[in-house]
């Protein structure tokens, strides 16, 4: 079998069976696996050649995929959108500026009461704001810096956060001024690498986390036990989001990309400089949102309530507003003095909040 005269595809099929068992099977001392080892050693012996060939094969397969899809004689989004009325002038301004973080704001989440926000930053602080009055209501100092993930519990009674400590902790919010919030902290999730995102699923009792160790997991808050773990990514999982569904059992996770909230089973991904819309049912990309004048990539996106508008926070300090259906850029918002790192639309869709490396959060409406 391991013979160069056989095509790469045949070798792939041969190897694929054994990849199912994971890499460690290579270390068992059996003749079959020694054979595979030889194949791989052979391939590795001319690494540049083999990798180049593999890359070419990948490209060929991708093209074939596109050809097959094209055969479906489908209609593109922008074709259907031609009949729709264009959006008028868009005026959005900063309505509130939340100042108080001592370092880069990394993550934010809205409370279900539509006016409170929890935000976390690089200096290890997690702050709960009443964004409407701009008052700080709670502040927690985490034992680690770079708190990359934070989430508000659906009841509004607790917040979850984590980052470089590889954990996700839940802090019940107490109104007693004398009480130290850190005292009641509950350690829920434990990963083997940094925590990149977390969110509560439907109730205060379960948390979904994603981590730099390449996995996502569902945790029971009360006991701290892992209920389910999700493998499948080959690299750091950077973000996740819940899908609104009748069974309430689906979520999407992203590697090296950001995912916005689902609208009708579609998600938005960001790669390099472009925001892309991807449909899960058709299993393909539906639209790309990019402009020549936009040089830097986006770090975070979210949809407006109807799904017609897409807000993207970019690394060039701006926020671009896109018409999702027509694919055009509707507006550009200035204000932040550094990278926009996180962006979320409020639960009732009246405004959105952006957090930035300039240490502030802004509410736009």
């Amino acid at each position, binding site marked *: 079998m391991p013979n160069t005269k056989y095509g790469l595809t045949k070798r792939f099929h041969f190897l694929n069976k054994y990849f199912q068992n994971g890499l460690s099977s290579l270390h068992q001392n059996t003749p079959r696996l020694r054979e595979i080892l030889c194949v791989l050693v052979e391939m590795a012996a001319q690494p540049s050649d083999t990798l180049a060939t593999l890359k070419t094969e990948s490209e060929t397969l991708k093209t074939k995929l596109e050809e097959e899809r094209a055969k479906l004689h489908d209609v593109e989004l922008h074709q259907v959108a031609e009949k729709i009325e264009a959006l008028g002038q868009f005026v959005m301004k900063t309505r509130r500026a939340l100042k108080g973080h001592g370092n880069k704001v990394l993550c934010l989440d809205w409370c279900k009461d539509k006016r409170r926000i929890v935000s976390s930053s690089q200096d290890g602080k997690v702050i709960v704001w009443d964004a409407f009055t701009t008052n700080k209501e709670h502040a927690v100092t985490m034992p680690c810096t770079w708190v990359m993930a934070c989430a508000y519990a659906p009841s509004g*009674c607790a917040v979850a956060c984590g980052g470089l400590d590889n954990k996700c902790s839940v802090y019940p919010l107490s109104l007693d001024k004398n009480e130290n919030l850190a005292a009641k902290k509950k350690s829920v999730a434990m990963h083997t690498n940094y925590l990149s995102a977390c969110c509560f699923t439907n109730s205060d009792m379960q948390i979904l986390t994603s981590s730099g160790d390449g996995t996502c997991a569902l945790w029971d808050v009360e006991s701290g036990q892992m209920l389910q773990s999700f493998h499948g990514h080959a690299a750091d999982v950077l973000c996740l989001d819940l899908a609104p569904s009748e069974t309430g059992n689906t979520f999407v996770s992203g590697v090296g990309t950001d995912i916005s909230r689902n609208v009708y089973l579609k998600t938005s991904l960001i790669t390099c400089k472009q925001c892309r819309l991807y449909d899960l049912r058709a299993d393909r990309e539906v639209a790309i949102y990019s402009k020549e004048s936009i040089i830097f990539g986006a770090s975070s996106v979210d949809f407006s309530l109807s799904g017609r508008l897409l807000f993207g926070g970019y690394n060039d300090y701006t926020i671009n507003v896109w018409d999702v259906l027509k694919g055009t850029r509707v507006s550009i918002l200035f204000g932040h003095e550094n990278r926009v790192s996180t962006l979320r639309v409020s639960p009732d869709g009246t405004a959105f909040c952006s957090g930035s490396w300039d240490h502030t959060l802004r509410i736009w409406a």
Partner: protein
Amino acid sequence: AFYHAKQYAPVYFMCAQIQMERMVISMQDPDMGIKLRNQRLLITVIPHAMTGADIVEWLIKKCSISDEEALHIGQIFVKYGYIYPLKEPRNLILKVDDSPYRFQMPYYWMSTRWPASELDYAIYLAKKNIRKQGELIEYEKECYNALHKRINHTWDFVVMQAREQLRASKQRRKADRIVLKCQEQAYWLVNRPPVSAELYKLITLTKNTLYLLKRTLTITLCEGLTRLCVCVCSYVKYCEQYQPHDPIMQGCLPSIPWITDDIMFWNMNFAVPTKLRVERWSFSFMELLNDPMGRKEFLTYLKKEFSAENLCFWQACEDVRHGETSKIPEKVDEVYKQFLTPGASRWVNIDSKTMEKTLEGLKRPHRFVLDDAQMHIYFLMKKDSYPRYLKSDLYKNLFARAIVPQETKKSVFPFMRRQRHSSPSPALATQAAEDDGKAKNSNSFKSNSGTASRR
């Protein structure tokens, strides 16, 4: 370099082993062997260690060979784990300087322990994982996961052993601990060598290409793929339907609180709903259920139809799914008593197959044991009661009574800001509940189940 000690045929290797071990023993001879001293490793002093230069020097004298050859032989000892480095333990290389090295215990010699058992490796990895999170490197993690799958039946034993060994090692002196750790690590580096980075990249790329191959084949068979035009049209329809409800797009009445500082938009709707709100219940069954007022109205309707137990059952199932794990058994028991027992006061009509499966599952209740039954009732309501509710007088009258709020009057002095009123914190509600001694979540949960967007 990609090397694997076991690539050599066992017979020839054994002869080499005997030779190596003979030499290692003479290296450790108290009179004629290598002079062992205390070597410093960061802040700890490791006893009975030697430098790389010492090893090479001894080999030159003993075998009367050049320093190049001595280095080559010395390297072999390191490669097969008879000597291990204290600094940079992952790098099994012999350096001819003052880098510290130690002799591996005979316990760990290849001849006594080869082949290394899976169980031992699992225990080693488990120890590493417990001791320090994130200490397992990429390929070790893969091995760990694969082992966990393969020898899952003895995993409790593995973890127990790992914990025991860690506990025992804690009782040792620090210097001994370091030495033991290095010995063990060296042993496993030889017996489970890491796959080179290049190879790992190659394997990942191969996997990805295979995945693409599979996808292409799936597309070609055209199975289960929705045509894009269907998706696109449904998306456009969704946008159009929700546009009047999108405050950023079309504003909202009375006004957007963030702009006018008037929070009427958040505070109205408690007694008489707005037309927009009632209209939204007709978009989908989920919209109706997600709105507490909608749910309440629907319950009133179902009561008239004598099928209110369906909604109550669905709600109870949600409570099980999203509530505390410790309360699951008692909640499930309650559900059984109220809804599933034949002759129960609020018996729900589930098909016999689902009922049988559910009752079987109730013997060992878990979070999702009621899922099938819940789904059945959900779709029953969705297909039957829900459409009829939308056509009912109850709904139509409510819609007629629903208001269209007045737009907030612009302030007489436009440059003066309205006072921004604070609102009671959601945490306050819990505080009160806790003081009353009630369970923290039963109160807040009832108004928050589902992906709610309260108005």
